[in-house]
C-alpha cells in the first residue's frame, strides 16, 4: 500500500516536527529562567516581566499546537478512509 505508506510518512513527519518544536519551546523556559534570571526579570509591559509573559505564552503555544494538530489529523482521517475504500 504505497499510498498508505506515504500518508504515514507525512503524519510521522508532522508529529516529529511538532514534538521537537514544543519540547524546545517548553524547555527554553526553565533554561532561560534558571540560567539567565537577570534577562528574564526585565519588565516589558507595566510590571510584567519576560519571565511571566514567556510562561503565559506556553499555554497559548500548547493550545495552538493542539489546534493545528486537530486540523491536520482531520485531513489524515479523510485520506486514510479514502485509501481503505479503494483497497
Amino acid at each position, binding site marked *: 500500500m504505497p499510498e498508505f505508506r506515504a500518508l504515514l510518512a507525512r503524519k510521522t513527519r508532522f508529529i516529529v516536527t511538532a514534538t521537537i518544536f514544543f519540547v524546545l519551546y517548553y524547555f527554553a523556559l526553565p533554561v532561560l529562567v*534558571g540560567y539567565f*534570571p537577570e534577562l528574564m526579570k526585565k519588565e516589558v509591559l507595566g510590571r510584567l516581566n519576560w519571565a511571566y509573559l514567556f510562561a503565559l505564552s506556553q499555554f497559548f503555544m500548547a493550545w495552538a499546537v493542539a489546534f493545528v494538530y486537530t486540523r491536520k489529523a482531520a485531513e489524515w482521517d479523510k485520506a486514510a478512509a479514502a485509501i481503505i475504500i479503494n483497497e
Partner: protein
Amino acid sequence: MTIAVWMFLAFVVATLGITIWAAKKNTSAGAYFAAGRSITGWQNGLAVAGDYMSAASFLGISGMIALFGYDGFMYSVGWLVAYLTVLLVVAEPLRNAGKYTMADLLAYRLTPRPVRAMASLSTIIVSTFYMVAQMIGAGMLVKLLLKDLPLVSTEAAIIGVGVLMVVYVVFGGMLATTWVQIIKAILLMTGTIFLSILVMKHFGYSFTSFFDSIANITYTDKSGAEVTRNFLEPGMKFGAEVTNGWGPLDLISLGLALVFGTAGLPHILVRFYTVPDAKTARVSVVWAMIIIGTFYILTTFLGFGAATILKPDNIVTDNMAAPQLAEALGGPVFFAFISAVAFATILAVVAGLTISASASFAHDFYTNVIHHGKETRPGQEVKVARITAFVVGAVSIFIAIKLQNVNVAFLVGLAFAVAASANLPVIVLSIFWKKFSTTGAVAGLAVGLISSIVLIILSPSIMGVDGPEVVAAKRHLIQGNPIFPLTNPGILSIPLGFLAAIIGSLLKREPAAEAKFAELKVRAHTGLGSEKATAH
C-alpha cells in the same frame, strides 16, 4: 465549619446515586472497565481533567505561588504542556490498539506474558504511590480544615476516602468513576473561576493594580525582618543561590518528568478506552487541554492573589493558601465550598487510580499472565478486578495511616518519574520502532522503574541531615547527606529507561514482533479492527 461537611455529604450522596445507576449498567467487562466505550468527547475531556488535577495542583500550586511567587507559577506550565505528548504521540494509537490497559498496546506485537507482567507491576506501583500521597493529603486537609470538629480525625478522613473510592470502583466501575471525575472537574472549575473573580474584584477589576501589587509585596520573612519583594521575579524557590546551584537543573528535570510522565500515567491512559474511537479520544484530549490550561492560568489569581491579599506570613501552610483566600474574600460559606471541592478533588483522583490498578491486575496479570488470556468462567475478569480494588483500597488505607506523619511529597514526584522513565519509553518505541522487542520492553520497564526509585531514595527528598528542632513530619527519612543532588530523577532516569529498551531490543531481536509491526501501524493509525463501543 459544619457547612463544609454538609456540602461534602451532598457530593457523596450525589456520587453514590451515580454509582447505583452505573452498577445497573455494568453487565459486561467492556462496560465495567471501559464504560462501554460510550463516553463522548467533551465528557471524557472533563473526566481526564478531573482524573488529573489532584489536590497537589489545586492546593499545592496555589500555595507554592503564594509563598514562592513566580517559581510556583512555573510549575503550572508543565502540567498543561504535558498534554501535547498525550495528544500527539499516545492517545490515538493506544485507543486503536488496546482494550483495557496500557499493557495491551505493548502486548499487541510482543510476547504477552513477560511484557504484561512487567507493565502490570509498573502500573500498580505508580498507582499505589500516587494514591498513598493523595490519601495522606486528605488526612492533612481534615486536620487543617475541620480542626474544630471533634468527630473527624485524620484516620477517619483517610478511611472515609478509601472506603468511598472502593465503593465507586467495586460497584460502579469505570462509568461511576467517570461521572465522579466529571462532577469534580465542574466543581473545581466553578470554585476556581469564582475565586479568581473575587480576587479581581478586590483590585477593582484592574490588571494594572493587581500586577503592581504583586511586584511590591511587603511581609515579615522567616527571620522576622520586614522585606518587600517582587513576586513576579524568578528565583525564590529554584534560584541558583537558594539551592546550592542545583535549582535550575532540578527544574529542568521536573519538567522532563511532567512532559513525558503524564503520557505514561496508567490512570490517564485508561481514560482513552472509554470513548468510541480514536477520533473521539483526540477530541477529548483537546477538551481536557482547554479545561486544564484555563485552570492553570487561573492559578495566577489564586496564588498571587493569596500572596498580595493575605501576605505570605499569614498563610498557615502552603496547602492552606487557596482555602484561606476563599475565606478572606468570600466568607465562611465560600471557604466551606472550596474545602468540599478539595475533598471531591482527592476522591475523583483516587477512584481513577484504583480502577486503573485493579484493571491492570485483573486483565494483565490474572487473565493474561496466569491464565494465558482465557477466562475459565465468564465474568471472572471483572470479579478479580473488584476483589483487587478492595485489596488496593485496604492496603492504601493501611499504608496511609502508618505514614500519616511522614513527609510524602516525594511520592507524587516518584509516580511521575516512574511513568516517564519506565512506561513512556516502551509506549513510544512500540508505536514507532520496528525492531523493538520483548527483551527491550522488559529491560526498559525494569531499568526505568528501578533507576527512578533508587535515585529518589538517594535524593534530597529522602536523604538529609535535620537538626533536633525539625518536627517529625518534616524530617528526612534517611539522615545523611544526599548522594544524588536533584529531587527529580527524570533527567537521568528517562534516558536510562530509553537506553535499556533500545539496547535490550538490539541484543535480542524478535522476528515475530517485527513482522507484526506493519499490522500494528495500520491498526494504530486507522482504527481498523479496534475495540468498538458496546453499550449506549
